[in-house]
């Protein structure tokens, strides 16, 4: 539990205690005067950056229980602010809390408004706190703090009047259905023989006051809880039990307070406000009277703490990640070293095995591959023999054809039709890539020849050439036969000249060129 400084300000005195590990050792009490403020300043010197929670126990307080139309969000805030400003124009210390809904048809919201109507009471003390840059968590009225008490004591009557005696007088706080409804500080005689009688009268008066306010009727049963921190009110308990039959009275003494709430006897005895400071330390009430200007320091304190927490969490997260990464790097490094050792061992074993191998000029893989390559190259090697046989047969079938030149090529590109060898396949860029498993080469041949005898009959010569080409095309190995040059170029884009003299002798030449291309698989 975070350390904090707990302060209770009343008209008579100011009690301060340092809350640490869910308790405080003892209260330091200051008089509510100039000397007290000076002493308080000295006391604060030891409380650096410690959040401060302030209880105010004063007669100048106000409680209003009102119903308002049900609303929520910004509408509710606006309405409440308007109402608070309307009720409490002269003080900045006020608050409003929702206490439930009306049982009627409208189901209006019920609010408890409360305020410290004399801000001057705490002004000097608050100034001293702020001068030390101590963040103020909140300012609370004592009855709102004491609301924790019945809950801690597990007392849950529908009508409960909490009674306690302070230096400033007698405090009577009424709870309806475990919710604070009203509280008053009655100035009565707290010492002497008439004190108990005066207390009993105040309780009776309070009952009448509640009846007048229509909070409860006189017929209703009322439970009175007397908080007797110094064991001086046992007589009051007996008096109420004797005189008021419809009042159920219970007193909790010093020992019970100590055992029920976990406050040490010395702490309890250190101040009359010790019990309430302890309750405030246990849980701050929701009714915080401090305006935003007063709690700004605490807000900044919280933000700073949040950022520091985020820094700590980030540092731990980063450190954890880095530690894990370093561990993994080291672990992986060890694995690498182990793998290297194993690899080295396996390689040594392999070398040992290879000593039994027959001496080979290269690795087994390369040996196998060399044999495979030699077979593949052997399978792709071609000679012009097949082409020559085919041409020879075609020439026998066409005796008019006389061959003058035979060219053969085995390349990715076809043989050139000018009689020269084809371009190198490696340098040819317009050759499509070969199908898988082949090198893309194919056989092709160029035949240059003439038709003999030729007596000027171009039609007959061309027919002989076409017949020769057709004879070649019949072979299954042939993919294509192209006549690239005819004896007579009848292309209409070119000029044409000649002599039509009809003679029985040889006249001119009927030359042609022909390209044969084999299928790629041949």
């Amino acid at each position, binding site marked *: 539990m975070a350390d904090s400084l707990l302060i209770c300000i009343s008209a008579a005195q100011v009690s301060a205690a340092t809350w640490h590990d869910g308790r405080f050792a003892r209260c330091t009490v200051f008089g509510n005067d100039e000397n007290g403020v000076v002493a308080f300043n000295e006391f604060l010197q030891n409380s650096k950056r410690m959040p401060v929670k302030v209880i105010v126990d004063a007669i100048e307080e106000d409680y209003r229980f009102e119903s308002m139309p049900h609303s929520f969000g910004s509408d509710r805030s606006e309405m409440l602010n308007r109402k608070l400003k309307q009720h409490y124009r002269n003080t900045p210390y006020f608050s409003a809390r929702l206490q439930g809904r009306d049982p009627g048809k409208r189901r209006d919201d019920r609010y408890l408004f409360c305020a410290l109507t004399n801000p001057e009471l705490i002004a000097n003390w608050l100034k001293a706190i702020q001068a030390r840059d101590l963040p103020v968590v909140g300012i609370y009225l004592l009855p709102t703090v004491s609301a924790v008490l019945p809950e801690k004591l597990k007392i849950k009557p529908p009508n409960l009047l909490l009674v306690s005696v302070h230096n400033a007088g007698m405090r009577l706080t009424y709870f309806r259905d475990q919710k604070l409804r009203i509280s008053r500080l009655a100035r009565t005689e707290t010492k002497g023989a008439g004190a108990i009688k005066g207390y009993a009268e105040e309780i009776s008066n309070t009952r009448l006051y509640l009846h007048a306010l229509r909070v409860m009727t006189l017929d209703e049963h009322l439970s009175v809880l007397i908080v007797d921190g110094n064991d001086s009110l046992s007589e009051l308990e007996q008096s109420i039990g004797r005189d008021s039959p419809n009042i159920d009275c219970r007193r909790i003494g010093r020992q019970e307070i100590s055992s029920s709430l976990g406050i040490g006897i010395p702490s309890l005895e250190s101040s009359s406000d010790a019990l309430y400071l302890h309750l405030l330390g246990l849980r701050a009430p929701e009714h915080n009277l401090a305006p935003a200007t007063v709690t700004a320091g605490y807000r900044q304190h919280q933000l700073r703490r949040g950022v520091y927490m985020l*820094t700590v969490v980030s540092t731990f997260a980063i450190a954890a990640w880095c530690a894990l990464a370093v561990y993994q790097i080291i672990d992986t490094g060890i694995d690498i070293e182990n793998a290297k050792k194993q690899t080295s061992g396996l390689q040594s074993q392999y070398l040992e095995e290879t000593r039994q191998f027959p001496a080979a000029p290269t690795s087994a893989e390369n040996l196998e591959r060399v044999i495979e390559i030699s077979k593949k190259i052997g399978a792709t090697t071609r000679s012009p023999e097949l082409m020559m046989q085919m041409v020879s047969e075609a020439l026998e079938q066409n005796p008019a054809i006389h061959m003058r030149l035979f060219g053969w090529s085995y390349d990715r590109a076809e043989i050139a039709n000018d009689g020269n060898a084809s371009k190198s396949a490696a340098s040819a860029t317009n050759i499509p890539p070969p199908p898988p498993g082949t090198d893309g080469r194919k056989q092709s041949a160029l035949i240059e020849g003439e038709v003999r005898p030729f007596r000027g009959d171009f039609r007959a010569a061309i027919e002989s050439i076409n017949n020769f080409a057709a004879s070649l095309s019949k072979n299954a190995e042939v993919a294509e036969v192209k006549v690239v040059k005819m004896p007579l170029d009848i292309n209409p884009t070119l000029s044409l000249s000649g002599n039509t003299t009809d003679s029985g002798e040889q006249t001119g030449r009927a030359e042609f060129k022909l390209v044969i291309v084999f299928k790629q698989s041949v």
Partner: protein
Amino acid sequence: MNADDLKALRNPLILLAVIVAIGAGAIYYLDRSLTAARRDFAQQTNLMRDARTKLQRSGDEKLVIVRHLPNYKNLERLGFVGEEQRLNWVEGLRLSNQQSQLFGITYQISAQQPYPYASDLNPGQIALHQSLMKITFNLLHEGDLMRLLATLGKQGAGFFSVNRCQLERSGASVATGAAIRYQPHLRGDCELAWITLTAPPGVTAEKKQ
């Protein structure tokens, strides 16, 4: 949050920024180191797996060597494996000319170059080369060409592939149409590719050295 809040938060925010910056730098550096370490481990694991596989297959490897070594030696003897044997080629050409009863062969061998169809043969570490030889000769008839090529192949001078050939009738013969016995009628020229390959030395070869 107003200006006062921000002022109050200045130092904590600076501290947070410094921590985050240092942390980001450390995370970046360590992440890279970890990635590199994992990559090295993966590589080393692959090496180890390869070594294990190699060891497991050493028996098979031995069988492969025993099975293929004679053929390899034969290819080495033929001049297919190892350095070029140009002297053998020329000698083989000379003998082929004699045995084919030709009228002499003129040859021209170009500089050695990479074999252009090597990539189709998946050669791995093996380097394939070729040297192009252009030969020119005179023939009595077309059949002499095939006889020459067959004879050259039988010489065992090397491993060659015929790229192209051309036969052309001699001008006089074509003009007169009267062939004189034992006089060349045809002029031929061919381009042969003498193919060789070199394989890197293996473990056993290194071991013997």
